[in-house]
């Protein structure tokens, strides 16, 4: 891993910023998913991670000057929409059972 190599042509600062932003969004999403206990907030955190993935796709697409990255974002959007529909249906179902949105209410599903 070499730091700044003067031999290389200048890269695109936008790509670098986009990739950093995607990494940050993904990390923040993981932290939120692990630390929050409201099921709706937890699913919002997975959407944050989707955002990070999409931003990475767009950035790499720009780096390689290729449209495939943008095409993949369309599929990411599709999967995110499907996930939101199913996950929110599940949340409503779970809320009807226990009258709470807390994930702690379903502790008995854990192994220990």
């Amino acid at each position, binding site marked *: *891993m070499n730091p*700044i*190599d003067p031999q290389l042509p*200048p*890269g695109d*600062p*936008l790509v*670098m*910023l*986009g*990739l*950093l*932003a*995607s*990494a*940050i*969004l*993904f990390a*923040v*999403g*993981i*932290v*939120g998913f*692990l*630390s*929050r*206990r*409201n099921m*709706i*907030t937890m*699913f*919002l955190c997975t959407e*944050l991670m989707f*955002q990070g993935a999409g*931003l990475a796709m*767009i*950035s*790499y697409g*720009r780096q390689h*000057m*290729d449209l495939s990255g*943008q*095409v993949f*974002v*369309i599929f990411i*959007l*599709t999967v*995110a*929409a*499907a996930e*939101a*529909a*199913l996950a*929110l*249906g*599940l949340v*409503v179902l779970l*809320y009807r059972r226990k009258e*709470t*949105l807390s994930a702690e209410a379903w502790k008995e599903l854990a192994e220990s």
Partner: protein
Amino acid sequence: MIPPLLFAASAICAVGLFLLLRQPTGKARFGATILGLAGLAWLLVQGVQASGALGFDPRVAIMSLAVAMATAAAVRVITTTRPVFAALYFVLVVVAGAVAYLIMGAEFMAFSLIIVYAGAILITYMFVLMLAQQAADADGPSVAYDRVAREPAAAVLCGFVLLAALSIVVSDARTNQLPTAKLEARANAAAWNRMRGMPELVQERITAELAATGKDPIGWSRAGELVIAQDGRTAMVPVTLADGSRHEAVLKAADLPVNSTSLGWELVTSYPGSLELAGVILLMAMLGAVVLARRQTDMAEDDRRAAAGLPRTNIEDADLAGDRA
């Protein structure tokens, strides 16, 4: 980017986020925010430096602002205790993300991101928040759970080990890059090839070119295929004009199809199977949501038969009629 500096910046961000997750108030909250933003700024400056770009570029400034906005909003999503506010801050993340998409030249995806995320998915979240509303009172949420983050230290540690690892990959992005000239030549060739498949667009551009060069733009016909120039920046189309003379219409980079046109073309020519699969995924999600949202009814077997129009079995079995009692 030099890894130790990178890790230091990530660690500062981590400490800031950890302090914010503990729901501080007043000065402590202000300090934690400043710390987190400072770490973020250092990380971004390192990123811009590592790209080796020189000089000031307004696009970089706007992109940095968008990244800072997205990060701040994302942190608010996970630190606020009210899910409605979390959803609204998530809209801000989406808007900042769309700005970043726009600057990176993905116009179509920027707007569909806003329409699909801020318009559709977030509305669904709002509906579910209303459906699953707890008895709220005037002075705030009355829920007893999720008032404070659970094990913020472990979560932050986990997240920022991930961030450090990801940013090493990010810093490799420049070393893995092909030479710019080669990339540009490839991208130009791909763009002209896409344009070959759009004869109506080519016709429109040639007409415009003829009008611009003072030739007769009516009654011409194409006399050959589109030929890409050596450097890939322009392309020539031989045409026969109305008066029978030959002309080489020169198309420039500005004549290439716009982002949404090329994206649609790429989608249906290179990924038709994936497109069908995406449709199937959406259909399955719809069916799944319908099945999940169906109200569970307590009906005995015999009643179900009656509801379905079948004759009753008249079996006085406790197992079958049990739910009616």
